[in-house]
């Protein structure tokens, strides 16, 4: 009886495995991104024009919530079904180190600027990496309710941490990243020295001590859509959020909010190609198209994230629906007030600081 059972199981398992390995057609690409308004902007700026020009290629858009869990699982199972993934730079570097993503020869495989400048010179400095083709610069910044305070309005990071002058609840991301930097900036550390100070045990102590001063007034968010909602509901007077989401709350939903660009933390988002995929050439062709100067500038019509190419910046036009100039809503427009996140520093310290942050939250 046991033997028959084993044979049946093995037979059916084999059949199931066969069914799973049926591969997609050569011209179908699975493109994975964050979903929502962001994917919508990519569909309009990249996917639709590309499919119009290349009728043989079908781009499937898949949503995910970030991180490398799925890419790693597919790689370990030896069945990579995602052809292209939209990732933040820190995940791209990590995935690259672990061999999850393909390395790119930038100048040979990416489009040059219209004036002939090679890709490696045209992309903003320090945004290109071995396995990473940048699309946009986004930022995490504070917004506040413009109807919350009479008289003086908050302008700086120190104001955000000033409960006396600007009382009320704040919402911050439930993660040490960004919050520790902001705490130090509010405590008087210049943005250029933030990671030097954080690199010392005393600096970490100092950051947590500053966060202690507002801890009781903080609601912690984990989902990117939550802070804008909390601000709109009047649950909080300050909130951190991705600038694109804040833009849509302010300009599209006409919420009484304003962004404090001081201390904004800029981050890079872009494409990475999982290694082991079956359609490498087709994917590379799409990536070359989607990251050329015009396409990156086009995306800014639909969402307020800054293109990662220098040559795209002058081409930024008006919002497709609202008709307002998009250039003043780009994080890159306020680059001098903020700083680029220290992803290498966080790669080293994230595991430990996350535990420490969670322990601090529970105290």
């Amino acid at each position, binding site marked *: 009886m046991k033997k028959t059972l084993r044979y049946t199981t093995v037979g059916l398992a084999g059949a199931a495995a066969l069914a799973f390995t049926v591969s997609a057609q050569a011209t179908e690409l699975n493109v994975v991104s964050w979903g929502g308004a962001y994917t919508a902007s990519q569909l309009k700026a990249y996917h639709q024009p590309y499919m119009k020009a290349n009728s043989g290629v079908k781009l499937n858009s898949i949503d995910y919530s970030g991180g490398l869990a799925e890419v790693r699982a597919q790689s370990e199972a030896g069945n990579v079904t995602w052809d292209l993934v939209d990732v933040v730079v820190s995940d791209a570097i990590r995935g690259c*180190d672990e061999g999850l993503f393909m390395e790119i020869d930038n100048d040979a495989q990416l489009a040059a600027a219209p004036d002939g400048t090679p890709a490696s010179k045209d992309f903003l400095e320090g945004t290109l990496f071995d396995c990473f083709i940048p699309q946009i610069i986004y930022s995490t910044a504070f917004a506040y309710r413009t109807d919350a305070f009479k008289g003086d309005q908050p302008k700086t990071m120190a104001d955000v941490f000033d409960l006396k002058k600007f009382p009320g609840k704040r919402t911050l991301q439930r993660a040490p990243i960004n919050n520790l930097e902001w705490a130090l900036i509010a405590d008087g550390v210049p943005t250029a020295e933030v990671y030097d100070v954080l690199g010392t045990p005393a600096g970490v102590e100092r950051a947590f001590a500053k966060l202690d001063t507002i801890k009781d007034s903080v609601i912690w968010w984990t989902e990117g859509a939550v802070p804008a909602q909390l601000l709109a509901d009047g649950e909080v007077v300050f909130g951190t959020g991705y600038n694109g989401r804040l833009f849509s709350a302010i300009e599209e939903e006409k919420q009484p909010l304003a962004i404090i660009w001081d201390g904004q933390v800029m981050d890079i988002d872009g494409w990475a190609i999982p290694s082991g995929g079956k359609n490498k050439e087709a994917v590379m062709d799409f990536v070359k198209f989607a990251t050329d100067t015009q396409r990156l500038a086009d995306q800014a019509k639909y969402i307020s994230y800054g293109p990662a190419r220098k040559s795209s910046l002058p081409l930024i036009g008006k919002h497709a629906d609202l008709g307002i100039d998009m250039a003043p809503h780009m994080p890159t427009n306020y680059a001098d007030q903020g700083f680029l996140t220290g992803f290498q520093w966080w790669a080293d310290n994230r595991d430990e600081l996350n*535990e420490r942050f969670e322990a601090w939250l*529970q105290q």
Partner: protein
Amino acid sequence: MAEATVDQSDIMRTADGTPLKVSIGRAMRRNKLIAMGLIAPLLIFILFSFLIPIVDMSLRSVDNSIIPRILPNTIVALETWDGQDLPPEEAFAALAADMTAGRESREIGKVATRLNYEVSGMRGAVMGTSRKISKVKEGPYKEALIKSNKAWGEQDTWLLLKRLSGKYTFGFYLNAVDMKYDVQGDIIAQPDFRQIYVDLFIRTLWMSLLITGMTILLGYPIAHLMATLPLRYSNLLMIMVLLPFWTSLLVRTTAWIVVLQSNGVLNDILVWVGLVADDARPQMVYNQIGTIVAMTHILLPFMVLPLYSVMKTIPPTYMRAARSLGANQFTAFVRVYMPQTVAGIGAGSILVFILAIGYYITPELVGGTSGTLISNQIAYHMQSSLNWSLAAALGAILLGTVVALYFIYNHIVGIDNMKLG
């Protein structure tokens, strides 16, 4: 062989001459095969979607194969090292060779990630060194390695590598209970500021117990009403229980946010009635209260339904008999009615408790800092930190706890007394 001794003519045979025993056996076997074929899809489904993943995840919690696989020469070279001072030049040369090979195969990042779980900063040390050392073609490697990163000049780094040379490790389980190995390999507690998991396990247990208790308190009267009211009223009640049950979990959770938040429905009513001042609205969501209220509501049907099905079978005549024998309503209820519902309470409690202990999305949304559970940390390690081994260890401990509680329950109440319907 036993048949051989029996006289052939005594055996009962079927019409075609086969022994009856063989014939029946054949028919039985066919029936068994058909039965097996019928349950085979379920069996295979459970095997592939449940048992194999669980075993695979559990193995990850002790898996340490990355270091021996990617740094094989280093591990061999460290075998003879006595742990005093720094290892000999061969170990440095072996590490340089392993790192160059690991960079070639693009797997050195896995070592970097693994070592960084143990000591913060090792990720940068490994990645930076592997980049530089692949250009160094000849020794001495000791100076070259130390020059590229000072971590290789520290005895602790090498002790760490030596400690992680086995294929299996218990370290993730230690991490999951807020402990760790020190450089000597002794087990010590994590520093205060990194202790989170034990508290979360305890909180998960007591909040699940509390939520189970709340569902009994709230569910018992409803189930009793449903079982005793005339059919047209009880049907209406049943719909009111089932309708939320069929509604999406996310919808119900976000509905509670709308009700409980500071500017939410409940607070507005309290202010309007005058019970609380407008500027002193109580915080009822994004904390423990939020989690307990929302989860109690969401899990309530799992208590009401088994209770109802048990109560439905209790004849009303028992209560009447108890009353006629002189018991008052209260005594009759407590001594006669309630003992008969224990099976339903048991079934409902087990359902609610086990569901609550692994709840993830509701605490994530309404729990804030004080109302999140261990499952939220497991999800974090699965999705963000990618420390799947730690997630597996946390999950295995949770699974172990549930199984242990189940056996305790079985011992005290007896699982045969449970009735789901």
